[in-house]
């Protein structure tokens, strides 16, 4: 295991290379390809952060879309142009957030989105993380529906189901990859500290971890809250990228998409989530012209689904994942070698 200072330098070097790459991309690629690159970055942030909860801590949460929604709406409300607030019937900021003549800069607004997502994770996590296995998954899915419902009904803040458009388009390739770098760095640091080790221990065997002194709730919550922060960030970036958000965007489908990316790439690995996000999006945009040419709409999703089933059948641990000791349902004399 790489540990400490030297690995950090590699990280910095990687970051510089990444930014060099981003610069070259802005110089030589057209906006459509840049668009896809940014989208890959945003989905990677979401997938990498989900990996902390689902991959390392072993909690199969389906709540990521909810945190993305919270981040998206929060940052949007903070950065929305003063001039358009009235036209869109959105409120001015209250005094403690800067007052009616103030609009937040992009970076702190995104952070704030992440923070509020974390707060939500803390509130919902305390009861929901007590649940085990599929119950946790279903309850977190319920949380997504409830957040979507709130986004629909808190019309004064969210304009309800109609959503908010004309969001300033601050998200670009630099911001996205800066945040991706931060996300990967933070999660890498956590994984390589006692905090991450405690999470992995819980994933592997909760009782064993407990008798070694790990308090499950604390570290489950920590993974949930940190994961939620970066999900909120991804949501904020997404909002300032598509420039329009609606409650419906942050529903089952978004959650499932991210989960699928993670599992396809490989849970609990550093590269897995990014590989998953990049490969699925590449597939999608590479197939797009084919779909349009053949005029078979839905073809992408069908290929997507078949691919998913094939990967699950033949490499259930994901593209870059390693086989793990998992509990098995044994049928018929298979438990003995």
């Amino acid at each position, binding site marked *: 295991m790489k540990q400490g200072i030297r690995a950090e330098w590699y990280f910095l070097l990687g970051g510089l290379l990444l930014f060099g790459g981003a610069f070259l991309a802005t110089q030589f690629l057209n906006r459509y390809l840049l668009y896809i690159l940014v989208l890959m970055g945003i989905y990677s942030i979401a997938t990498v952060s989900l990996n902390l909860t689902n991959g390392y801590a072993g909690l199969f949460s389906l709540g990521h879309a909810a945190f993305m929604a919270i981040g998206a709406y929060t940052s949007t409300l903070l950065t929305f142009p003063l001039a358009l607030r009235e036209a869109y019937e959105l409120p001015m900021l209250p005094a403690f957030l800067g007052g009616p003549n103030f609009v937040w800069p992009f970076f702190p607004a995104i952070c704030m989105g992440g923070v509020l997502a974390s707060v939500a994770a803390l509130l919902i996590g305390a009861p929901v993380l007590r649940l085990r296995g599929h119950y946790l998954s279903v309850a977190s899915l319920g949380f997504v529906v409830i957040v979507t419902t709130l986004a629909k009904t808190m019309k004064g803040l969210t304009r309800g189901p109609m959503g908010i458009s004309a969001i300033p388009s601050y998200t670009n390739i630099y911001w996205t990859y800066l945040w991706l770098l931060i996300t990967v760095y933070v999660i890498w640091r956590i994984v390589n500290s006692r905090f991450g080790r405690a999470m992995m221990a819980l994933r592997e065997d909760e009782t064993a971890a*407990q008798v*070694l002194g790990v308090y499950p709730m604390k570290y489950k919550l920590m993974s949930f809250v940190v994961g939620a922060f970066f999900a909120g960030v991804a949501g904020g970036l997404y909002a300032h990228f598509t420039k329009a958000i609606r409650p419906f965007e942050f529903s089952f489908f978004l959650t499932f998409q991210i989960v699928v990316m993670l599992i396809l790439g490989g849970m609990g690995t550093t590269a897995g989530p990014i590989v998953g996000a990049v490969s699925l999006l590449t597939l999608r945009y590479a197939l797009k012209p084919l779909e349009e040419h053949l005029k078979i709409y839905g073809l992408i999703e069908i290929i997507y689904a078949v691919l998913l089933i094939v990967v699950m059948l033949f490499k259930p641990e994901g593209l870059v994942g390693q086989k793990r*000791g998992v509990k098995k349902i044994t049928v018929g004399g298979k438990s003995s070698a």
Partner: protein
Amino acid sequence: MATILKVEGLWKNFGGLTAVSDYFLELPEGEIYGLIGPNGAGKTTVFNLISGVLKPSKGRILFQGIDITWFRPDQIAALGLTRTFQNLRLFPSLTVEMNLRIAYHTHARSGFLAALLSTPSFFREEKEIGQKVDRILELFEMSDFREEIASSLPYGWQRKLDIARALVCEPQVLLLDEPSAGMNTKEAEDLAVLIRRIHEEFRLTMMVVEHRMPFVMGLASRIQVLDYGSVIAFGTPEEIRNNQKVIEAYLGVGDLIA
């Protein structure tokens, strides 16, 4: 010698079934006690109760004078009592080193921010953990397995890793649940030597559940025998071996059928 672990009138009911009834224990500091009994006598349940994995229906558990009856397992571990498991509960998909590093948890002090920023103090602590792990690996002659995935180790080594892991936790009292299960006689003998060595080197207090009699009799200074959830005998190995009640518990009452 001072009593480090004291259990008074411990009961545990599962539904209508009484698994442990009126169990007691006074474990002196620095001793190794054995806990034996036929299948289903409640030995593991006793360990589960002491380590906090299960909550008793009645009774009191004192560790270093602190009432830990209602503590969570992690709190008990933080006070210095940990255990191993009969059915091996390693962290199967992690490396040997990771298994051990995790166990240092209760002693690690560095904060979240320090970890994120990788501060010198964090770095120093990680190094300390590394040294501690090295020492234990050496002691267990497992240095070569450092990077191996735990579940890929040969079974005997997995057993040893389980004990090694508990030692990284630096407990004062260690409960070993069938440490030699699944080992052959030779391996078991080696393990006994190792346990004795650990006992001396770390000045540990231990309690061992075992079914391999020579193993436990050679190791423990006193043995408790459990049957139907209660203590039916307590004494030195020699006393236990010749105790009629114990023989009956194990072999059955001679004239029951015949």
